[in-house]
């Protein structure tokens, strides 16, 4: 049993005032944040306390506002990709792909089969990273620092995997309208197997450390609960909605990418408290790894196998020749530029990008090797040209790590988005946070805030 919470009467005697004179508000007003060490996010909660109990709370956000939506209107459609990295910076790949898919929906194009699978695999790896971070931080704030270190270790394995594919760990900018930046590296499958093995071991350890832990359960069970009706009325989606027993998951309800090709389960719990959210996230990580493994096994395109046969030339020399106009026969030479930095191998490029020339930059080999490729490149890069979806609007929803991540894109027919709206999955839970913490103790705010998994970059945009 947790110790008896302290009320003002206990400390100061019955009917104790505050020294502010008769008629003054007896409650204590305390502002938590914006930079509080026990809260992993820049947010301010103005609380009204009666002893240890929160009577009223006002949540203030916006400390990380960077005008994401305004910035998107300034450049071309692909220029917004790096900004989307910085929305939910724990799982940036999902943001990349969701934004790209919204623009593709507006254009009315389909990406290649292999690209759909790559997006699925990479999005699920990101989801595991996100859930790991959420549970790790929550546990750390409750004093379980070991859990934090173990889970960050597991996340490290996954981030190394992400780094192998995208060339970066956090601001990955891997998605593109019409495809992805580059194909998966050769040795991706064994590395993923290894990383998942390590992650599963960590999850087993965490289960033994936390799931049946008396202290952890006392702090989590029955705390921060929200009813099913209220969760829906506040438009809360994702793990928090599934923790009240509603099996809504965008991946299942409106399957996109390759989510309908592999079997997996939508995880639900009944109670809607912090413990139920923890259980949902733990089970979802296993499901995510399951999806990623099956999708990788089913991925079309086969092993990456390029034959050089002595015809290969140094990529730098190839580009130099092209720039000097010595392009005769150049396109027949198989070449391999770095898949993560400079360009791609031509056949690999075709596998992961749509064939629509109005959308996707040609591979660097084509740009430097032929006049058509060069013109195609310029038509997409020059101001006033670029990707030009027809006038109209589209809303694309995908399942972010914290719930429905929607992008609403409006086009005026030009080369820049007229309006980009991101529906942040973090915002509804934060709007309902006061309903979860009012009437509970101030110490309960910490696990509740942890289970909400606020991500400032996405919440404040």
């Amino acid at each position, binding site marked *: 049993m947790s110790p008896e919470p302290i009320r003002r009467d206990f400390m100061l005697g019955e009917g104790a005032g505050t020294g502010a004179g008769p008629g003054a508000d007896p409650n204590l007003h305390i502002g938590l944040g914006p930079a509080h060490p026990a809260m992993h996010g820049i947010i301010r909660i103005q609380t009204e306390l009666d002893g240890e109990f929160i009577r009223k709370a006002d949540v203030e956000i916006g400390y990380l506002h960077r005008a994401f939506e305004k910035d998107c209107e300034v450049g071309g459609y692909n220029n917004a990709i790096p900004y989307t990295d910085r929305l939910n910076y724990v799982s940036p790949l999902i943001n990349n792909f969701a934004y790209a898919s919204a623009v593709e929906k507006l254009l009315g194009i389909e990406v290649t089969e292999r690209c759909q699978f790559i997006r699925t695999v990479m999005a699920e790896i990101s989801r595991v990273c996100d859930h790991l971070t959420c549970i790790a931080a929550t546990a750390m704030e409750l004093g379980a620092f070991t859990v934090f270190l173990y889970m960050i270790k597991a996340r490290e394995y996954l981030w190394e995997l992400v780094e192998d594919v995208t060339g970066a760990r956090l601001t990955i900018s891997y998605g593109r309208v019409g495809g992805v930046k580059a194909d998966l590296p050769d040795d991706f499958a064994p590395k993923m197997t290894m990383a998942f093995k390590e992650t599963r071991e960590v999850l087993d350890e965490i289960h033994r450390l936390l799931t049946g832990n008396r202290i952890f359960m006392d702090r989590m069970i029955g705390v921060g609960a929200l009813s099913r009706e209220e969760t829906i009325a506040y438009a809360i989606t994702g793990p928090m909605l599934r923790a009240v027993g509603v099996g809504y998951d965008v991946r299942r*309800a409106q399957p996109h990418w390759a989510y309908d090709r592999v079997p997996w389960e939508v995880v639900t719990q009944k109670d809607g408290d912090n413990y139920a959210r923890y259980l949902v996230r733990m089970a979802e990580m296993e499901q995510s790894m399951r999806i990623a493994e099956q999708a990788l096994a089913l991925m079309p395109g086969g092993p990456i196998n390029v034959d050089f046969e002595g015809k290969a030339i140094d990529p730098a020399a190839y580009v130099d020749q092209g720039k000097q106009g010595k392009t005769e026969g150049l396109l027949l030479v198989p070449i391999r530029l770095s898949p993560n930095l400079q360009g791609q191998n031509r056949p690999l490029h075709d596998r992961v990008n749509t064939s629509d020339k109005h959308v996707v930059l040609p591979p660097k080999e084509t740009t430097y090797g032929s006049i058509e490729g060069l013109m195609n490149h310029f038509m997409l890069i020059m101001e006033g040209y670029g990707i030009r979806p027809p006038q109209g609007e589209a809303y694309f929803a995908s399942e972010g790590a914290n719930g429905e991540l929607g992008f609403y894109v409006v086009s005026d027919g030009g080369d820049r988005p007229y309006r980009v709206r991101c529906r942040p999955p973090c915002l509804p839970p934060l709007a309902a946070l006061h309903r979860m913490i009012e009437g509970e103790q101030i110490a309960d705010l910490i696990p509740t805030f942890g289970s909400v998994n606020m991500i400032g970059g996405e919440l404040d945009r």
Partner: protein
Amino acid sequence: MPGAAILQRLRDRFGGAVVASHEHRGDATVVVERAALLDALRFCRDEPGLDFDVLMDLTAVDYSRYPGREDGPRFEVVYHLYSIARNHRVRVKTRVDEDDAAVPTAVDLWPIANWFEREVWDMFGVRFTGHPDLRRLLLYEEFVGHPLRKDYPINRRQPLIGPKV
């Protein structure tokens, strides 16, 4: 329910108040007059068969620089509704002029509208009549202007606020 059937039900019920409707790229969209907006939203939420129980998103678009719409109503307030039970979506929009940029609040229908509407007020300067607490959401009270309006220059600087030293 397919998008066309949803739109048909809304047209049948609201008739002349439906300004336009379309299904571009598979997104069922209906534009209603402001006077009928709340009724339309309530109809979407409560009508058996429609059952739109989630206000998934609420935002606005400033159409003052949109080709062919420079003279028309400047703002469009956009509601994205979703039904968990039926697994379908609809987009409800209403148009308002700049000099009368006010829309009735949907807080009574969905509590999440509180924050969404505060954000739209913050970013676009569209007021929501009847809103219990229409403060800015992301920016600070001293901020001048509404940055997502098309006439707000992206490089405008605002004075830093904070305690005077």
